[in-house]
């Protein structure tokens, strides 16, 4: 079944679809699909409308293979409303991939990334540019990881508009590890949504989801994170933590953790905190002479900085910290 047929089958996103629970679905314009879908692959298993959209609109596919053992840095940029990137990272390769924002999109922009990560490869995937001017942006990732591979997926979301990042990860090989770090710095009516599903399909696989939100104005963020641990997957580790600081009365956050665990010998945690800036920390800084506005700035920056601190030293970490220092 091609992507257009599949979209017609599942219908437009609705709030009663658990993949879209918190998303303002009424803001999605009814698409006018082309007559034919050039990609004839079978998408009958794909559940997420946003994953199908670029394929249905015949997005140009950019393919990039990174050879076994290679060490590469690349910047990926979509120059059309719809984009499709296919990456194959070879065994033992190291890759650092920065996704730049689409500056030419009109009403809607949808990108899809299919990434296969070979054995023992290490990949940093990150984006940190503000995406002003795009009313609606979908970014979908499908990541398949082989044994011993490591993927660091990191992002900073800022800027106006409605954005949704969806990610389906398949940890297929023993010892594969995925770390997701998401920072949302939102204001006005900014709206950012995450729908993450991580499938642990092999023993000793590990996943970390760590999201932090700094929400001002009337902004809102949501995090819908699922972890599925398969029946034969012992010694799996999974953690999910979402911390939010509400900087205004009108900002809001919604968080939904879903854990489906089919093995006993695993460690899976989830947590969610939501509050204001710490009054004692604010007092401490101001009691040393720092003006209150500067103290608030310091604390919000520290909150953001902490998210990326545990990352291994890398160009990605450097870039993310550079962006945070200018928040």
């Amino acid at each position, binding site marked *: 079944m091609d992507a257009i047929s599949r979209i017609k089958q599942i219908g437009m996103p609705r709030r009663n679809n658990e993949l879209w629970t918190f998303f303002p679905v009424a803001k999605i314009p009814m698409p006018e699909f082309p007559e034919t879908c050039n990609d004839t692959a079978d998408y009958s298993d794909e559940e997420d409308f946003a994953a199908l959209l670029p394929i249905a609109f015949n997005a140009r596919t950019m393919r990039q293979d990174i050879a076994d053992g290679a060490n590469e840095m690349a910047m990926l940029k979509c120059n059309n409303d719809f984009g499709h990137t296919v990456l194959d990272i070879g065994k033992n390769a190291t890759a650092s991939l920065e996704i730049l924002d689409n500056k030419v999109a009109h009403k809607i922009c949808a990108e899809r990334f299919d990434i296969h990560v070979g054995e023992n490869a290490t990949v940093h995937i990150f984006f940190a540019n503000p995406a002003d001017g795009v009313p609606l942006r979908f970014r979908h990732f499908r990541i398949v990881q082989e044994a011993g591979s490591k993927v660091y997926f990191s992002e900073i979301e800022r800027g106006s508009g409605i954005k949704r990042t969806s990610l389906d990860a398949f940890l297929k090989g023993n010892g594969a590890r995925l770390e997701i770090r998401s920072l949302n710095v939102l204001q006005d009516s900014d709206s950012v949504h995450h729908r993450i599903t991580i499938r642990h399909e092999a023993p000793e696989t590990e996943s970390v989801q760590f999201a932090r939100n700094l929400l001002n104005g009337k902004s809102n963020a949501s995090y819908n994170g699922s972890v599925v641990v398969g029946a034969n997957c012992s010694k799996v580790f999974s953690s999910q933590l979402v911390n939010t600081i509400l900087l205004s009365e009108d900002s809001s956050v919604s968080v939904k953790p879903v854990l489906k665990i089919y093995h006993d010998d695993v460690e899976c945690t989830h947590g969610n905190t939501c509050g204001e800036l710490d009054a004692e920390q604010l007092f401490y800084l101001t009691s040393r*002479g*720092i003006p209150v506005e500067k103290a608030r700035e310091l604390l919000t920056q520290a909150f953001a900085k902490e998210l990326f601190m545990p990352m291994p030293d890398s160009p990605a970490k450097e870039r993310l910290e550079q962006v945070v220092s200018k928040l």
Partner: protein
Amino acid sequence: MLSIKDLKASIEDGTQILKGINLEVKAGEVHAIMGPNGSGKSTLSKVIAGHPAYHVDGGSVTLDGKDLLQMEINERANSGLFISTQYPTEIPGVNNVEFLKMALNSKRAFLGLPEIGEAEFKKLIDEKMELLEMDERYRDRGVNEGYSGGEKKRNEILQMAILDPKVSLLDETDSGLDIDALRIVAGGINHIMGPDKAVILVTHYQRLLDYIKPDFVHVLRHGKIILSGGPELALELEEKGYDWIEEK
């Protein structure tokens, strides 16, 4: 220098903690405030600093004639007030040295001075860290982040040394310090202290006063200073406790 007159303050539920504190502190003086748990000692320093959890019900606090209670928290600090609370707050993600530099520059801006230069600041912090026998770990960590109780207290005195306040109110600076650390911290306080400055020590124990000699010792109980005396009063309190004062 610091003048506290009939200071009354309460917490959010209306319970009055300070019930009329009077204290005059002149330049060059060291005062010690002692008292049983719950007497209002920690509240006193927080109220003077402007902690938002407390409401001032009456009285006045002036520093060199300026009304501290009318000032914002940072303005009180920049006017020359330094308070060290019993449990210094941890602030992960805010680098200790960067924080110190920002605090110092905030004070300099308040006083109409330019920002301190890199070299001058490095020299200053190196000198003060050496005085307090602090190792390099203090530079890279977040403010008080993961510090032991003693390390936090030492870091407080480092801040005091950098900010060079007129009046320092140190709440249980001796708690959590081993004998060597107590000697070093007390030595630091004595070094910072001068004829144009004043220190108020809040403590439970005589041992801190063996290192920092107070000119006056006050007993705070039920939100009021009920007895004042010379250094000998601390020794008497150590020996007899507090009950005899009320009996008296």
